[in-house]
């Protein structure tokens, strides 16, 4: 089932250069889509257009069988959540508890149900022990997990991650990724759009969209995308080390299948 359909989306900040230039794709229920592309290729702009923070051209975005316009904006936002890059700048409440409650207050959830919901979703991202902590006493990864809990508590059908792990250290990245995996397992119908510079993460998704100067240059499953290394050179995206390594090896005449683990590759090489 198609949850979001984007059709010939065009956007310009200054009415001169199209930052997003005729983008079309669709988001199906339960799919994990990655969007990759160099800095300034328009990824964040697309995310903001999808959630109505920027105004898209007419009839270009359809979500849940509704046109994305001022009238439907509220209804659509109830079903799409977004986690941004900077953990500090999306922490609204003065404690973890308050921050998760913020979205619930906007959704007019009755007061006596809030505590249960807060506890439930804080537990899902492993933050139950930190409910009364202030943001300055939390790590970046913890803050991002709170942001995820705040979005999950609103029970969305689609969650957009705009480089949600890029400001975190490896530990924080891992924690956030584990939370994402867990929530996909618990709710197989949840769709995810993940904007990322981390190609390893992108290649673990169902579909990869490669963006270059506001245009889609590739939209396919990861295996097919990897077949065409030229795309990466053109769009200025750096391949993961493993893939680069394997490409070089195959140029040197050593063929190793890409889905082997690092240990297997080493074994293969030593033979």
């Amino acid at each position, binding site marked *: 089932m198609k949850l979001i359909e984007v059709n010939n989306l065009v956007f310009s900040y200054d009415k001169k250069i199209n930052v997003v230039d005729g983008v079309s794709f669709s988001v199906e229920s339960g799919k994990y889509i990655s969007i990759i592309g160099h800095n300034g290729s328009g990824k964040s702009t697309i995310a*903001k257009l999808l*959630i109505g*923070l920027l105004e898209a051209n007419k009839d270009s975005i359809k979500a849940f069988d509704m046109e994305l316009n001022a009238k439907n904006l*509220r209804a659509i*936002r*109830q079903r799409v*959540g*977004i986690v*941004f890059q*900077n953990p*500090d*700048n*999306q*922490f*609204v*409440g*003065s404690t973890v*508890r*308050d921050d998760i*409650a*913020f*979205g*619930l*207050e*906007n*959704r*007019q*959830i*009755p*007061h006596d149900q*809030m505590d249960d919901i807060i506890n439930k979703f804080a537990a899902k991202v492993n933050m139950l022990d930190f409910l*009364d902590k*202030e*943001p*300055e006493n939390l790590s970046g990864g913890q803050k991002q997990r709170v942001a995820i809990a*705040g*979005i999950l508590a*609103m029970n969305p059908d689609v969650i957009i991650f705009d480089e949600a792990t890029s400001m975190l250290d490896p530990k924080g990245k891992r924690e956030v990724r584990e939370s994402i995996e867990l929530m996909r397992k618990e709710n197989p119908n949840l769709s995810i759009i993940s904007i990322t510079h981390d190609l390893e993460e992108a290649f673990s998704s169902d579909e990869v969209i490669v963006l270059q100067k506001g245009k889609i240059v590739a939209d396919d499953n990861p295996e097919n995308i990897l077949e065409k290394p030229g795309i990466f050179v053109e769009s200025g995206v750096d391949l993961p080390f493993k893939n680069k390594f394997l490409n070089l090896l195959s140029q040197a005449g050593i063929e190793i299948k890409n889905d082997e683990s690092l240990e297997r590759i080493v074994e293969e090489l030593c033979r």
Partner: protein
Amino acid sequence: MTNVSLGRYVPYNSFIHRMDARNKIFCLIALMVAVFISYPTYEITFIVGGAFAVFVFALLMISHVSVKDIFKSLRVLWFFIIVLLIINIFIPPRDASNVAFAMGSVNVYWEAIFQSLKIILRLVLMIELTMILTATTKPLDLTYGLEWYLTPLKLIKFPAHEVAMTISIALRFIPTLLDETDRIMKAQSSRGVDFKHGKISSRLKAIVSLIIPLFISAFQRSEELADSMEARGYDPKAKRTRYHILRFSLNDLFTFLLVGAIMSGTIILSHYEFNLQTQSFIPWYCLILICIFIYVIIVGIIDATRRKA
């Protein structure tokens, strides 16, 4: 940058902590009025002032404010105290007639000393009372309390909710921005900018090199925060439910009445120009005050022991 102790919330569960923020704001204002009332003679002023000092100190202890923090909060006063003493000594009050001692050719009057002491006492009490409020009330509850007082102004289109939301976000971001200041200062110092030494003009330049990046980042933050709030469905005009609900308990009713009594008592006391020698009203009033203080202290102690058990 974390040594901002004045006005810091001290997490604890005393009965003052549990009081309704709206009631605490009322009590603060009422007690400040009581502290600032003038009495006809210095004797009454210092008896009542002393009683208040004991009362406020007891409240501070109940609130679990550390003695260190109390002294820290008073540190800002030193300069003021010295200036006040100098002014009062060189320009004595008009009714000054009793010379305490002479400093060279200048007569130092008792009235001048008393006058200074009176003002210092009031200032100290005012600061400590405010400290009790901020130490026992979460910033968010405080803003909700303020919002409640501002609600009637909605009739004249005053944006009470927006103001409260703005204040709570400002409070939320103070530590973040302090951290940021620290970081920028370190970054600029490593580039050779000197914040502590040098001519005024070069220090001014150093401060500009701090403020500009700070502002740019603050604007960036506010934009991202606004995006995030909007994406989470925030609309200041729309109806919202509340996670924090302020509750006016029986305890609040008691304290409300007591503090109201203290305030009106002091007003009566000052208005009727009672004289310590002739009026039998004073002892009664003092007795009532003492009873109230004892009541509050006992409640606090019972409360503290119950917590421990």
